[in-house]
C-alpha cells in the first residue's frame, strides 16, 4: 500500500474520504454523519501514514499494526478509508446499508477484508484491543494496537474495566484514540452525562495522555509516533474534533450524530432534498472549513 508522506496529499485524502462519506450516506438514506466526517483526518493519518505492515496484502501478516474501531456507527469513514487503500473497490461504497451488501450498517468482521473486529455495541473495542496488546506481550511481538473510541462511549462501564486492565498490566504498544467531538445522540456530551476530566481519569488509571487537534493531520501523526515511543504504559490520544467537520450546517450540531444528509431539519441546514448536494459543494470548494492551513 502506498504510504502518503506529504501533508498536502494526506489532506487531499481526508477531503476525498469526507466526500465518500457524504455520497455513501446520501445513497444509503440512513447512517451516522457527524462522527464519520469528524474522523476523516484521523482516518487519513492512520490508513495512509501511521499504520505499519498494513494494507490489503498484509491482512494475515502477524506483524501488521492492529486497528480496532470501537465506535462501529462511524463505519462510513472506515469503509471509505479501506476502499481508498485498496481493500475493496471504491464503487462498492455506494452499497452501504443495502440488502445483499458486504458493507453492513455497522462493521462486521469477515464481510470485507481488513475489518479486525465487528463493532457496534459501544464499550467493547478497548477490551478487545487489550487482548490484542496482551497477545503481543505473550508472543514478544512488536505490532502496535490502535483503538478508536467515541467520547459518548465513555459512558459505558466496560470501557473503564479495560482502562483499568491496561493500566494495571502497563500494556505496551496500545494506543487509544478518543474522538472528542462533544456530541452523542441525545445532546452535547457534558449535558447527557459528564465525561470530563477525561485526561485525569486516564492518568489516574496509569495511562499517558496526549491532547491533540484531531483535524491537524500532522499533529495526529506526531501524537501517534509519541504514543509508540512510550513503552512503559498505554497511551490515550484525546483527539479534539468538531462534530460534522467539513459540512457547515452539520458542524457542532448533535442532531447530525445519527442522521445522514437529507435526514434532519435544522435551522442552519438547507431543505432535506438539497442537503446532500450542499454538503458535497462545501467539501469540494473548501467552504466547509476543512483546510487546516490556518492551524498548522
Amino acid at each position, binding site marked *: 500500500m502506498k504510504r502518503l508522506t506529504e501533508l498536502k496529499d494526506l489532506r487531499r485524502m481526508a477531503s476525498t474520504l469526507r466526500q465518500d462519506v457524504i455520497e455513501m450516506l446520501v445513497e444509503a438514506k440512513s447512517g451516522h454523519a457527524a462522527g464519520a466526517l469528524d474522523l476523516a483526518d484521523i482516518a487519513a493519518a492512520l490508513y495512509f501514514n501511521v499504520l505499519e505492515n498494513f494494507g490489503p496484502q498484509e491482512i494475515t501478516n502477524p506483524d501488521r499494526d492492529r486497528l*480496532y474501531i470501537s465506535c462501529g456507527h462511524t463505519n462510513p469513514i472506515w469503509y471509505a478509508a479501506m476502499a481508498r487503500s485498496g481493500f475493496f473497490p471504491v464503487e462498492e461504497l455506494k452499497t452501504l446499508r443495502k440488502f445483499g451488501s458486504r458493507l453492513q450498517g455497522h462493521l462486521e468482521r469477515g464481510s470485507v477484508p481488513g475489518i479486525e*473486529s465487528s463493532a457496534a*455495541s459501544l464499550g*467493547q473495542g478497548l*477490551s478487545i484491543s487489550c487482548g490484542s496488546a496482551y497477545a*503481543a506481550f*505473550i508472543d514478544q511481538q512488536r505490532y502496535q494496537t490502535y483503538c478508536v473510541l467515541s467520547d459518548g462511549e465513555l459512558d459505558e462501564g*466496560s470501557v473503564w*474495566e479495560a482502562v483499568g486492565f491496561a493500566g*494495571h498490566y502497563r500494556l505496551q504498544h496500545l494506543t487509544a484514540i478518543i474522538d472528542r467531538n462533544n456530541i452523542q445522540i441525545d445532546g452535547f456530551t457534558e449535558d447527557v452525562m459528564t465525561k470530563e476530566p477525561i485526561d485525569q481519569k486516564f492518568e489516574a488509571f496509569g495511562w499517558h495522555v496526549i491532547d491533540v487537534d484531531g483535524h491537524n493531520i500532522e499533529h495526529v501523526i506526531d501524537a501517534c509516533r509519541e504514543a509508540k515511543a512510550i513503552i512503559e504504559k498505554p497511551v490515550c490520544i484525546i483527539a479534539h474534533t468538531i462534530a460534522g467537520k467539513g459540512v457547515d450546517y452539520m458542524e457542532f450540531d448533535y442532531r447530525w450524530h445519527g442522521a445522514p444528509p437529507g435526514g434532519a431539519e435544522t435551522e442552519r441546514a438547507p431543505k432535506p432534498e438539497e442537503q446532500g448536494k450542499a454538503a458535497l459543494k462545501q467539501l469540494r470548494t473548501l467552504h466547509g472549513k476543512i483546510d487546516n492551513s490556518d492551524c498548522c
Partner: protein
Amino acid sequence: MVTKEAKLKKNYLDKDVEMISTREGFGQGLVELGEKNEQIVVLCADLTDSTKTSPFRERFPERFIQVGIAEQNMANIAVGLSLQGKIPFLATYAVFSPGRNWDQIRISGCYNRANVKYAGAHSGLSVGPDGATHQALEDIALTRVLPRMTVLVPCDAEETRKVTHAAADINGPVYFRYARAATAAFTTAQTPFKIGRAQVFRDGDDVAIIGAGPIVHTALVVADRLVEKNISCRVINSPSIKPLDGETIERAARECKALVTCEEHQVTGGLGGAIAEYTSKTFPVPINFIGMQDSFGESGQPNELLKKYKMDAEAIEAAVLAVVKRKRT
C-alpha cells in the same frame, strides 16, 4: 440394561460410586490442554480457586490472565487474544458469564466468529448455600439462542475433561457449564463423547429420559428402579445441546413414544426446550420436563434443593409414570 457402548463404571449404581465435582474435570482438562498446546490461555475474574483455573495458573503462569471482577472486559480480552491466534478459556460463575456479559458474547464472540471458550462455573441449583443469586438456571437458554455458538453440558468430571478438550478442538465460540457439588463419577475414559452426539446409556422402549449434566446419573438410578414396575426406560445422555443430536432423539421419540427431559436449568430454553422444538418438527410425542419451573432457587444443601424443586429421583420417577400415561396408543 446399560449399553455396552456407554462403557460406564461397573459400580455406577452403587452407593460407593466415587463422587467428584465436574469442576475437577475442567481443572484437569485445562492443564492437559496447556501441556499439549501453547496457544491455550486462561482468563479468570477473581474466582481462580472455585472455578478450578488454579491448577493451570500454577503450571502456566505466563498464560494465565487475572482480569479482576470484570466479566465484560474478560470476555472481550479473550476475543482480542483469539483474534491473534490464541485459544482463550475464560471461567467464572455462569450467573456472571454469560449472565453479565451476554452482549460481549453475542457481538464480539459469536458475530465475530471468535475462537473463545466460555466456561460457566457453579451452574445449576446444586450450588447450594450461596442461594438464588449464584444458581445459574438460565445460562443454557442465554447461549443456545446465539448463532454460531456451541453449547455443551457434561454429566460428570470425566466428561467435563473431555468437553474441555473438545471445546479447544473446534474453531469457534463454545459455551459449557460445570458445577460445584461432588456428583457421581460414573463414566470412564472409554465412554464416547463427540460434539453433536448423544449417547444411549441404557436401553429401553417404554419411555426415554434425556438428560444433560450430573442429573443423568439420577436418571439412571430411576430407570433401574422402574424395572420393578415393568417400565423399560431408555436413558440418553445429551451433553451436546447445540448442535443437538436430532437423530438419536428422533429415534427415541419414534421407538419409546414418550420423553422426559432432565436438567438443572429452567424448563424453558434449555435442553428440554431444544428437544421439544426438535421433536415437534420431526416426531411429536408427549414430553414431561424436569427442571426449574420458572422460579428462583434459595439457600440449602443440594439434596434439599433438588427435592424441593423436583429434580431428584422421586420427581423424575413421577414424571416418567405421568408421561407414560399420556402416551398415545
